[in-house]
């Protein structure tokens, strides 16, 4: 039925399309849905092992302090306590990015935010562990806390981390794609605006949990609520525990929500593993909700300045974007987050000249990291609100103006991102028509308004987090002589439906029914590596790996079935649990018989498939963030009701269109779109991670009651349009849907508030206080606006100049022509010995610095 919508989905032809798709694109129950409604899905905290011990962590009450002394003797003496650990027991640093190996499982010498883990206890009960933690004495020497972006720029000492480039600035970058000054000179109109996007947290319903078991034969097993079992396995556990990776097994339990919050290897996961090794007993931890707030790794607060030049028709002549990220106490994914705030400005509307300056600061707060949309909702908010202002300045309809300047399909952008299919135009038209935009925009009564915004998101990071030449995703496929099909893949289901993607594609390609397919995922001992459930990479990458494995399996099976049926193998079709002649469907065998024929002649039928991303076109430092095999597109129209007396913004309805390339299971796609709209709505009007604004720098509200997120009473109506513009790089043309549809929501709401009451709220969340303040200013004849007014001085480095493709650029920076391809970790993707060259050539990479020293 999805195909009946028409459109480009039908154009793709291969033998599997000779017969209508029976599974892909058709709505069905997710493969794990029944277990979830039965309550029988085993989440990490549902696990228990005999003789299991319980762990509690002692966390720092100070935002920034040196640990002078820790005395654990009273805790260790408590009856029932089996082990107490401090940072001295786990001295090896780790971190998700090679460039920021700055975490310890337990603080070694310093604590860097309130909640930083300092010591751990394993005991026979959780009560005893809790009591024992209270008996640990820690003497701290307090250090000046870095409370804000301004502090981080102003206070160079004390440094939160010694490796930071400039005082408390972890990383600064300056990238120039063409001469923006030339572009501004050509412009008919130029705008400069400053925006702020507040931080928010993932708030998964499941509290993080982990269970570890050590066997005296030297093997370790860890079950955890993690989105990235591979990174936990190899980037944290093997490294910190000095146990060979070959003897560690990590099993990611289904996550009770992730949204990016379970993407970092976490302190407590390393701690329970060590405690299991020390005690010889299984050890478990489940974090309290308060602790989940301290783990954070959520949305970075970002201050942004954007200057855009346009022609009369809204065509962009140049854009200059600055961002300053408040990173919190550790690196996490932050360097990537920083680059992401500057990467995707170019993939929606044509930007011929582009300059990006970005910086990430350390502050003494819970570390920020990747949250749904990773580093891109903030700049998208700035860009789409500014475009709304530009459209008004130029007296253009904002939808019409955007439609005119969409990046064409198969474009290489100014910053060398290779765009494939672009369904953005269809998205805009769907929501404009559906919402009645032309009869509402600037025409609704005072207090009511509509706003529109667009966006794009990656379908998987084009380059892996750490430097390697191996595939990003692997699948093993086993065909059982009983006709069952088992898919083994390292991907982790966090609720987004990744297990179902595998089952659906396997069923489609092998012509079996969904219940015939078994999916084994997220187990580092059983499944080939998939890098994890982040960057919206899973459908595209595991899907492509599975397509390859399934094609190989079909080839084996077809060979022997063809011999028996006396037809050429290429004529065989797999459908309806049969393998038959496409020209004469009567002539066939059952799938079971076909597998048995193959197994008899060929041996056990097992195949593998791998996926590696296309080579990134950019070769400059920083080019590793932004490239993706494909880009999804979204457009939202929000309709709001603003009460001028209270400032309360009520979002009534959001029309959202999302270009998903091709639905694998439309039910899951709908769910991802609606869930993204929900999370975007929360960020637009209420969610924030505020800190007490004093030297204690405590998180203000580490509870679900006080951290405001939308309930059923705040959630708006959602009208969803699925646009299917297949991308040649996606499996069956599929692109991502888990993150992209969040992006246009906050700016659409902000633009709608302006349409309703004529004030610009240039920061999120758009709270009643901010609206009221702006309305008051408007009444007094002031600037009808709430938001930041200045972007501070930042010690930017010398710009890296990269001529865009239309100026003859080849993706290299000027003066850096010999440079190899860059990676996410900024290390060239070449042989290791070569990797030293660019560092030696000048701009020493902190990545290689760190990697070489470890």
């Amino acid at each position, binding site marked *: 039925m999805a195909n009946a919508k028409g459109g480009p989905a039908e154009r793709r032809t291969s033998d599997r399309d000779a017969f209508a798709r029976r599974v892909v694109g058709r709505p069905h129950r997710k493969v794990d849905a029944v277990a979830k409604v039965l309550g029988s899905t085993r989440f990490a905290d549902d696990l228990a092992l005999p003789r299991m011990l319980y762990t509690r962590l002692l966390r720092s009450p100070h935002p920034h302090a040196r640990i002078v002394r820790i005395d654990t003797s009273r805790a260790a003496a408590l009856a029932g306590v089996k082990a107490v650990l401090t940072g001295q027991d786990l001295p090896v640093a780790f971190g998700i990015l090679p460039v920021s190996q700055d975490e310890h499982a337990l603080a070694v010498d310093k604590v860097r935010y309130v909640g930083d883990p300092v010591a751990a206890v394993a005991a026979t009960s959780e009560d005893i562990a809790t009591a024992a933690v209270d008996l640990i004495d820690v003497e701290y020497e307090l250090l000046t806390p870095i409370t804000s972006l301004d502090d981080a720029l102003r206070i160079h000492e004390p440094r939160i981390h010694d490796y930071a480039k400039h005082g408390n600035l972890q990383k600064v970058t300056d990238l120039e794609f063409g001469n923006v000054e030339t572009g501004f000179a050509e412009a008919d109109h130029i705008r400069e605006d400053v925006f702020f996007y507040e931080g928010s947290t993932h708030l998964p319903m499941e509290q993080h949990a982990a269970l570890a078991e050590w066997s005296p034969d030297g093997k370790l097993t860890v079950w955890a609520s993690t989105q990235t079992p591979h990174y936990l396995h190899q980037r944290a556990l093997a490294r910190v525990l000095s146990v060979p990776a070959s003897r560690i097994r990590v099993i990611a339990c289904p996550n009770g929500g992730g949204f990016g919050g379970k993407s970092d290897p976490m302190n407590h996961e390393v701690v329970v593993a060590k405690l299991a090794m020390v005690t010889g007993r299984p050890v478990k931890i489940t974090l309290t909700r308060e602790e989940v707030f301290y783990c954070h790794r959520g949305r970075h607060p970002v201050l942004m300045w954007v200057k855009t030049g346009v022609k009369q028709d809204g065509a962009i002549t140049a854009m200059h974007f600055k961002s300053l990220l408040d990173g919190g106490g550790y690196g996490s994914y932050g360097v990537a987050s920083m680059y992401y705030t500057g990467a995707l400005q170019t993939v929606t509307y044509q930007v011929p000249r582009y300059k990006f300056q970005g910086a990430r600061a350390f502050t003494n707060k819970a570390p920020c990291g990747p949250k749904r949309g990773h580093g891109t909702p903030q700049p998208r908010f700035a860009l789409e609100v500014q475009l709304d202002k530009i459209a008004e300045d130029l007296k253009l309809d904002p939808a019409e103006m955007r439609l005119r300047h969409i990046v064409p399909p198969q474009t290489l952008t100014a910053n060398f991102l290779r765009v494939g299919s672009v369904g953005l135009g269809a998205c805009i038209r769907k929501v404009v028509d559906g919402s009645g935009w032309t009869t509402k925009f600037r025409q609704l009564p005072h207090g009511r308004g509509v706003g529109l915004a667009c966006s794009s998101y990656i379908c998987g990071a084009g380059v892996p987090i750490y430097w390697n030449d191996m595939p990003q995703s692997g699948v093993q496929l086993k065909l059982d002589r009983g006709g069952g099909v088992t898919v083994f893949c390292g991907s982790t289901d966090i609720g987004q439906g990744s297990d179902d993607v595998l089952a659906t594609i396997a069923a489609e390609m092998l012509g079996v029914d969904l219940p015939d397919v078994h999916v084994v995922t997220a187990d580092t001992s059983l499944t080939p590596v998939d890098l994890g459930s982040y960057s919206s990479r899973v459908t595209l990458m595991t899907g492509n790996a599975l397509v390859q494995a399934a094609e190989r399996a079909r080839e084996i099976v077809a060979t022997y079935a063809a011999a028996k049926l006396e037809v050429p193998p290429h004529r065989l079709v797999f459908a309806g649990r049969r393998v038959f002649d496409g020209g004469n469907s009567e002539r066939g065998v059952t799938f079971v018989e076909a597998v048995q024929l193959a197994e008899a002649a060929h041996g056990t039928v097992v195949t593998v498939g791998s996926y590696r991303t296309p080579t990134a076109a950019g070769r400059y430092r920083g080019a590793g963030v932004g490239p993706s095999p494909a880009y999804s597109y979204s457009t939202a129209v929000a309709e709001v009701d603003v009460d001028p007396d209270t400032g309360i913004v009520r979002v009534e309805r959001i029309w959202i269109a999302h270009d998903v390339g091709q639905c694998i299971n439309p*039910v899951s796609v709908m769910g991802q779109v609606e869930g993204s709209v929900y999370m975007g709505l929360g960020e637009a009007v209420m969610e924030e991670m505020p800190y007490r604004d004093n030297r204690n720098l405590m998180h203000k509200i580490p509870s679900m009651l006080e951290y405001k997120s939308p309930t059923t009473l705040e959630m708006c109506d959602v009208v*969803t349009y699925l646009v299917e513009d297949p991308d040649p790089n996606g499996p069956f043309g599929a692109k991502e849907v888990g993150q992209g549809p969040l992006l246009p929501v906050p700016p659409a709401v902000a633009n709608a508030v302006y349409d309703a009451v004529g004030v610009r709220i240039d920061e999120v969340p758009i709270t009643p206080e901010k609206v009221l303040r702006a309305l008051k200013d408007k009444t007094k004849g002031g600037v009808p606006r709430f938001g930041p007014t200045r972007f501070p001085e930042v010690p930017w480095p010398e710009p890296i100049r990269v001529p865009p493709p239309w100026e003859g650029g080849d993706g290299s920076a000027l003066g850096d022509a010999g440079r190899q391809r860059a990676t996410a970790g900024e290390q060239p993707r070449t042989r290791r010995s070569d990797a030293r060259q660019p560092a030696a050539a000048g701009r020493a990479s902190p990545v290689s610095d760190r990697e070489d020293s470890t």
Partner: protein
Amino acid sequence: MARRRSEASGKAPLTLEVNGETVELAVTPQKTLLEILREDLGLTGTKHGCELGECGTCTVTLDGVPILSCLMLGLACEGKSVRTVEGMAHGAELHPLQRAFADLGAAQCGYCTPGIMLAAEALIAGNPSPTRDQIKDALSGNLCRCTGYIKIYEAVELAAAWMRGEEARPREESLYGER
């Protein structure tokens, strides 16, 4: 698992009816119903998201009324009837709410799902044809971070229709979006 219970004092006997079966236990006075269900009875289908009564995840019904099991002391439930997600299916047959939640993708990560289905079941028991607003009201104490609640409303409406004996099907737009 809740924390910070005071150190062990004597256990008291407790008789409950759980999903139609009588169970007899000895529990410490400070033990919550959530802990008894998950730890003593192995009924891990009941989840927890805060253990402070803020998120609704641990919702079960007590004599048909939805309650937060993390705030309910076990001993306060003496002689009462508790229903958890494990009691919803009829043998191997899914409850209409379970079917509808599965069909519509109303369970994404599935963590809030048991609590929400029990709250919805109690709603439908008292009001076989709840309006959308009544559903929102009844579920306003249950947070879900995955779905945006939309598919949950639709699943409750679909299940309610089935429970009224109607031949209902999911709307096309729920499955494919608007045209």
